């Protein structure tokens, strides 16, 4: 049950804000966010555990609403370096099942 990300793609100008959503039809224990540049490995951004917490990293933050089974990634005052494909990975339990299920990705392009 792959989580669904929206939008599929977004184009911004430098300095604009963006929100990327990740929704699941199953109960979630955690949400992991990654960014991938073309041809490179995904880079870890942050993990959110159930409890409705919100995290921030520089101008990138995220929230996790376990009741709604969704997470949102907020990018404020976007920079050219924010361009890439963003993936959410969802974890469903606290046992070591070894699995994260990743969404299909959201492509973000920041233009000067």
């Amino acid at each position: 049950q792959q989580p669904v990300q929206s939008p599929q793609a977004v184009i911004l100008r430098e300095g604009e804000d963006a929100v990327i959503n990740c929704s699941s039809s199953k109960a979630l224990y955690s949400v992991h966010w990654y960014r991938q540049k073309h041809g490179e490995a995904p880079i870890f951004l942050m993990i959110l555990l159930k409890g409705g917490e919100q995290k921030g990293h520089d101008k990138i933050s995220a929230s996790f609403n376990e009741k709604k089974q969704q997470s949102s990634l907020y990018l404020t005052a976007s920079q050219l370096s924010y361009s890439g494909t963003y993936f959410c990975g969802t974890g469903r339990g606290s046992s070591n099942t070894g699995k994260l299920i990743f969404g299909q990705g959201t492509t973000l392009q920041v233009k000067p």
Partner: protein
Amino acid sequence: SQTIHQWPATLVQPVGSPLSLECTVEGTSNPNLYWYRQAAGRGLQLLFYSVGIGQISSEVPQNLSASRPQDRQFILSSKKLLLSDSGFYLCAWSGQGPASWETQYFGPGTRLLVL
């Protein structure tokens, strides 16, 4: 600090030929290890994961196999490649805790083209 290596970086193979991709991790012990495949412009598909030497879980039935002969070595293999095996293969590691709260760190990947 921990480092993850993958090789080769790029591989072009004919259909029906064998495959062996290797992944090694440095700077940690008893990691969980993962193999993912990413088709062009697509998401990350988990192929195999391992929580210890000789312990392999397969997620997608196909003509690929994985082995973990040493604690920090993970190998992806095939006896006969198919055209559909083309893609970007990523190895990742995490700590020994549950996947739900352990960060996965990805290697640089191997780009495989089957002709």
